[in-house]
Each structure stands twice: as structure tokens, then as C-alpha cells.
């Protein structure tokens, strides 16, 4: 029941955010909003499929995780969005703190490889790590700017939160406690839903920067 509520709320949040991004794209015709709408669209479709499968058949897919394709696609769109919003100066910016991303994420990736599918874990973790790398670099770069350019930091904070929560979620899923609220997995997932929704206003600020 908790899982169903968790998935349904995430689907609704991403669907609403996707509609919001679509409206912003219609109004401004800016590519960043198109990518954001695609990110939310693919994410919500994948969550819908997963939710319906669990709801109707009381089990997760047995042969092939179609939802994973949607989540991989959404990560791809998020990475593309980060690249679109970054400036050439930001891409050249170097800081040792970005190495914290692989230091924290690679051991977790090794854990997932022991528990689950190798190809999917390499794909999704690789892309999430790349997104986290870009966001740490972007955040450090934006904090050194002044005026409107500094507003980019909100976007990078939102992306970093999403990446961090995704990793927490995957790690929690390796140590499944129960199907109730005592399981930290659900708390991470509720936080992820909030972070996903926060990406819409954060991107709006970043596009305006």
C-alpha cells in the first residue's frame, strides 16, 4: 500500500511538472524546457508502467524491466539539459571537489553490480554519476558568479539532490527492510519526488539567468 502511494505520488508529481515544462516550452520555445518536458515525460511514463504492473499483477516485471528504459531515457535528457544550460567557461572550470562524486558513487555501484543487472546498473549509475559531476562543477562555478548568473546554483542543487537521493534509494533497495514506512527506501523516494518537482522552478531560474 505504501509502495503504491509512493509510486502514484511520484507519477503525479512528474506528470504535473512535465505539463508545466511543456507549457513553458510552448510559451518561450526554449530548448531547455523541451528537454525538461522530455525528462519529466519519460520519467512519469516509466513510473506509470511500474505502478500499473505492481498494482495489476502484484509483482515486478519478470523478464525485462521496460520502466528502466524510461528511467535511462530520462537520465539522458537530464544530462543533455545540464549540457545545454552550461556555458563554455563552466565546461572548462576545474575543481578537485568534483572527484568526490566518483569516490562516493563507485563503491555503491559495485554493491549494485553484486545485487542486480550489470548492464542496466552501469548505464543508469554512469549517467547519474555524470549528472552529479556536472552539477557539482556547475554549483561551484555558479557560487563564484554574481548577479543573475548565480541563480544557476538552484538548478545544480536540485540536480545534485536528485542524484544523491537516487543513490540512497538504490542502496536502500539492496537492504530491503519491509513494505511499511519503517523502510528508509520509501522516505528517500518521497524526498526524490519533492526534489524532482523542485527541478521545474529551479530550471526556470536557470533559464532566466
Amino acid at each position, binding site marked *: 500500500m505504501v509502495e503504491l502511494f509512493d509510486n502514484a505520488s511520484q507519477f503525479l508529481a512528474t506528470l504535473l511538472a512535465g505539463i508545466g515544462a511543456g507549457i513553458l516550452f510552448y510559451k518561450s520555445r526554449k530548448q531547455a524546457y523541451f528537454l525538461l518536458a*522530455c525528462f519529466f515525460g519519460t520519467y512519469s*511514463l516509466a513510473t506509470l*508502467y511500474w505502478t500499473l*504492473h505492481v498494482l495489476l499483477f502484484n509483482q515486478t516485471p519478470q523478464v*525485462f*524491466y521496460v*520502466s528502466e528504459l*524510461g528511467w*535511462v531515457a530520462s537520465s539522458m535528457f537530464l*544530462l543533455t539539459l545540464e549540457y545545454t544550460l552550461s556555458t563554455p567557461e563552466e565546461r572548462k572550470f576545474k575543481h578537485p571537489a568534483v572527484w568526490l562524486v566518483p569516490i562516493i558513487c563507485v563503491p555503491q555501484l559495485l554493491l549494485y553490480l553484486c545485487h542486480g543487472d550489470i548492464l542496466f546498473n552501469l548505464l543508469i549509475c554512469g549517467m547519474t554519476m555524470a549528472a552529479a559531476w556536472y552539477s557539482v562543477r556547475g554549483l561551484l562555478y555558479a557560487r563564484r558568479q554574481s548577479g543573475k548568473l548565480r541563480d544557476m546554483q538552484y538548478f545544480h542543487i536540485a540536480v545534485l539532490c536528485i542524484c544523491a537521493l537516487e543513490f540512497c534509494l538504490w542502496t536502500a533497495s539492496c537492504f530491503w527492510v519491509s513494505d511499511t514506512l519503517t523502510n528508509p527506501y520509501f522516505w528517500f523516494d518521497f524526498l526524490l519526488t519533492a526534489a524532482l518537482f523542485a527541478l521545474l522552478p529551479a530550471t526556470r531560474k536557470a533559464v532566466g539567468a
Partner: protein
Amino acid sequence: MTYIENIFVCIAAPLLVTALCMGKKHYPAFSFCFAGMAACLLSAYINTFFARLYSADIINATTQIAPVVEEIMKLLPLLFYLLIFEPKAEKIGAAVLIVAAGFATFENICYLTQNGAAQLSFLLIRGFGTGAMHIVCGALVGLGLAYVWQRGWLRIAGTAGLLCAAITFHATYNLLIAYGGTVQYVAYALPILTIAVGVGAGKLLKIKPYH
């Protein structure tokens, strides 16, 4: 056993003669239609292969294998068209939709040969539902491709992302159908409603899809 390659020959033959009679101007439209039907034919074989490989039952094959195989097969002729002919954005949408319509038509014919044509009301609902689902997936990919193929570096990520979106939509539709009961009628209505909302929003907001 259904000899779908024989069905393909029977349907393609009159269309081929018609294409030859109508002249070069109409060759692309007929080619996309043939490509859609051929994609459906090959999908049937590949679906069976993977279902055997993973020892999947009918539900798992329908909800997890078929959407992936079918959407990839539908995209292949379009990728060929995009890479070789480098068409303008306006032409991409039409090409995708004709491939999708060819695919859906051939799939419906194969369904009829396997399950009979006695129940007109059910076939009408299924025909519109499945047909509209393939058109929705085609429109999703077509409109998206028309946008991303104008932006060089976005092509690979955009195409892969759109393909995944189409697969997930298709899989959700198949999932609801596979469950049966009242839920399957929701599935049949879903693509038609999606088209209605899409067309309605497009007209209301005066969206130019290829800009």
C-alpha cells in the same frame, strides 16, 4: 500456424501494383507503408525468438518483450530514411505516421486470421484502440524526431529518449490489455483520448509542430 509472410505478400502485391501505376511521386508513401508492414512481420519472428529464449509466458511476452521489439523495428526504417535522405522536418512526421499505420494495419490483419472476424463490435474497438496506439507512438517519435534532428548534437540522445518513451507508452497499453476485464477497455480508450487531447491542445494553442 499462421503463415504471416504469405499474408504480407497478398497485401503488398496490390499495393505494389498501385504504386507502380501512380508514379514516382507516390513511391515514398507506399515505401513507408511496406516498411511498416515488413517491420510488423519481422517483429513477429523476433518476438517469438525472445519469448522462447527467456521462456516467457504470453503475459510477460506481451507486456515486456513485444513493445521493445516492435518500437525498435518501427524506428529502423525511419532511421534509414533520416540518415540516407536527410529529409526536411515536415516530411519526418508524415513518414513516421505512415510506417505506424502500415504496422498497425498488418498487425490487425494477422489478429483477424488468428482469432476470426465474428465479433464486429469487439474488432471495431480493438482496431481503433491498437491502431490509435501505434499512431500515438508514431506521432510521439515523429514530432520529437522532427525537433531533435534539426539540432546536431541532440540527435542521438533525443532519438534514444523518444524511442524509450514510445516503448513505455506501448508497454503500458499492452499491460492494461493483458490484464483484461474492464481495464482493457480503459486501454483501448487511452490512445484515442491521447490523440484527442493532443490534437485539441494543438488547435487551441495554435502549435506549429515543426518549429
